[in-house]
């Protein structure tokens, strides 16, 4: 699965978890760009990404995620 495919899957997860159909993720998208993406929803997103992508992040990885690109790169590195 390449970065573009991962990004598309993440986009679906963000839309469903944050209940916002208008979300269009880019690699540089951050929490500041999406109103619903607060610290609680961040954890919910991580849990949903882990389930959907059948992967698991460590707490250290999660706290280092600064934008969507970091998540994509982390998933790609685990595949």
């Amino acid at each position, binding site marked *: 699965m390449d970065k573009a495919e991962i990004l598309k899957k993440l986009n679906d997860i963000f839309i469903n978890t944050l209940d916002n159909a208008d979300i269009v993720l880019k690699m540089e998208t951050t929490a500041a760009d999406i109103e619903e993406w607060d*610290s*609680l929803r961040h*954890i919910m997103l*991580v*849990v949903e990404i*882990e389930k959907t992508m059948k992967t698991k992040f*460590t*707490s250290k990885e*999660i*706290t280092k995620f600064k934008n969507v690109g970091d998540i994509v790169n982390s998933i790609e590195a685990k595949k």
Partner: protein
Amino acid sequence: MSMFHFHHTGLLVKDINSTIEFYKNTFGFTEVSEIFQITNQKVKVCFIKNGTDSFLELVMPEEENEAMYKMLEKKVNYYHVGYKVDDFDQALKTLEEGTILLNTFNSEAFDGKRCAFVYSREMHLIEIIEK
């Protein structure tokens, strides 16, 4: 024997003083701590003793704490449990695999000792407090 010793159940409240009065008058829980301002978390808290080594932690968000006010609006009232640990670093290491670390901070409610909030993957919020 687990390293995690139950300490409190955290309750979100809009008015800490009226909730203290409720538990005093209705349940007879008269042992109430002072009210602490937790700067890092933008909340005021107090502890009501409701059993042997067991407390209710009343947590009142400050006005600028939008995230917690949203939780109150959604009627999320019972929202975390707190455990005390002897070895804080070892406890976090033990939890690293099974939980997601939300934050760590020094709490005015526990003499500046270290605290951490972690989420289970079922979204249970758990506080770890250094003894």
